[in-house]
């Protein structure tokens, strides 16, 4: 209990933030996995990290511009100080989803091929941006790559809460259109739904969720929680709503458990969260295999 008390006292927002991050990824991941665009998730996490790395070059002073616009004094701990990495992470991700959403009809290259190109370019750019960043800030980029759930503070928590509400809101209000275009975009178009527009909205919301979650909890955590909870949901469910429910619950429950384990056994929280989720996946997969063979 000492570990639990310490965690709650020292890292309350980290625990709550990890739950939110897991829920966001579990929810979005269900679409990503069912759309068979898992590689999009991997690519977006890398693109987001490249965006964060780009922000450390300070080529565009968005913080300074916003501060002067609103007459704000930027302190080290202010929300605005953290704005630029999140902004560029989001911007890079949105540019990629804009490109990706327009490619589903083209036949010259496969979507995986396009994502593969973007993936390697993002990784390369990230390395180049880090090399040109001031040394003091390289550690921050590296910490993002490792995944630092424990560094989630109050502002990150509220940002994650905002993303969660926004994502859930968009998918609830427009569930008909998003369901149809993700199920069968050509037929949706033929039946009067603007597939190009709705797929664009779908990918932008997915891109926003992935990029901001990557910014706060790291690329390894984000990608793992896009895939593993939704795969568990698909393995266990017979109804679509059950898939989402199980994915979101799994995404919510495993991160705090893994933070506890990481804290107790002195591991990094991000990788511990991934391994814990994978162990649960193995248990569910084995159970499903056994159940199907009986």
């Amino acid at each position, binding site marked *: 209990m000492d570990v639990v008390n310490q965690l709650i006292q020292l890292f309350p927002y980290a625990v709550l933030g990890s739950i939110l991050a897991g829920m966001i990824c579990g929810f979005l991941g*269900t679409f990503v*996995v*069912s759309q*068979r665009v898992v590689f999009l998730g991997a690519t977006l996490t890398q693109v987001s990290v490249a965006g964060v790395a780009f922000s450390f070059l300070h080529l565009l002073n968005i913080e300074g511009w916003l501060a002067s616009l609103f007459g704000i004094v930027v302190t080290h701990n202010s929300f605005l100080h953290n704005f630029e990495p999140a902004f560029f992470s989001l911007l890079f991700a949105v540019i990629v989803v804009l490109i990706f959403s327009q490619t589903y*009809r*083209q*036949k010259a290259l496969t979507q995986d091929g396009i994502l593969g190109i973007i993936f390697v370019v993002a990784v390369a750019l990230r390395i180049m941006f880090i090399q040109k960043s001031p040394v003091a800030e390289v550690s921050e980029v590296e910490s993002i790559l490792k995944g630092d759930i424990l560094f989630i503070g109050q502002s990150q928590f509220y940002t994650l809460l905002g993303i969660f509400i926004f994502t859930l809101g968009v998918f609830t*209000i*427009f569930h*008909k*259109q998003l*369901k*149809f275009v993700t*199920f*069968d975009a*050509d*037929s*949706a*178009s*033929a*039946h*009067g*739904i603007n*597939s190009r527009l709705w797929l664009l909205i779908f990918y932008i919301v997915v891109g926003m969720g992935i990029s901001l979650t990557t910014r706060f909890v790291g690329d390894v955590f984000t990608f793992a929680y896009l895939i593993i909870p939704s795969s568990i949901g*698909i393995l266990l*469910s*017979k*109804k*679509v709503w*059950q*898939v989402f429910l199980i994915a979101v619950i799994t995404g919510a429950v495993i991160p705090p458990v893994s933070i506890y384990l990481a804290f107790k056994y002195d591991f990094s929280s991000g990788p511990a969260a991934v391994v814990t989720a994978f162990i649960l996946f193995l248990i569910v997969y084995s159970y499903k295999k056994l159940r199907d063979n009986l």
Partner: protein
Amino acid sequence: MEKEIIKFNDVTIGYGKKKIIENISVSIYENDFVGIVGPNGAGKTTFLKTLLGTLKPLSGTIKKNSHRFGYVPQRDTVQPLLPYTVEDVVMMGRYSLMGTFGKPGKNDKEAVEASLSHVGIHHLKGFNYNSLSGGQRQRTLIARALAVEPNILILDEPTNGMDTPSHYTLLDLISGLHDENKLTILLVSHLLSDVANGVKRLILMEKDFFQVGPIEEVLSEENLKKTYSSDFNVNKIEEEYIITSKHRK
């Protein structure tokens, strides 16, 4: 002659800058039953997508009255990982009629029930779409297209990959939709025999070759040779077209 409802006027179809067929001029009439036939890659699906408006023509004009389309895609293009039920899938056909924020109402549920009954799969409505046979999936997609309450039903290779009994019962179902429900139907197939003995008019399609007209005019050995670059015998025995390859002994 029935009323003209769609008119392609000197239309070129293709993707991007790649032209697939140029200068298509064809009209579709009310209560028409048109078969669209051609070898793989001839542009049949591209033609359909251009007709539906999901692809823009590269040139020319398409005149369409405000008709509602029901579209049945190639079955293999719909392979969901999520466990959607048959009812879920058919309800999608109603979405465009509900408005942006609307929810399924009594009318929508009744339309779904009626569509399911019409294609003979009402008993499957709670089943997972992924658990169905090929024929049942195809009927589900037809039910979804009927749920739109369409004026024009468009089917893209509906019998692809089906066993023989399912193949013919599905063709009977499609013929029934035309004969009994007076639906205008466009049926795409690469199987000549599917089309030749069911439709009223035929479109033969191949790159740089586009022929349209009543089946007895278009279904000739000469036209088939131009379409398939192969020799065929076309015989009519007891009102049924028998098409065989001249290379078969």
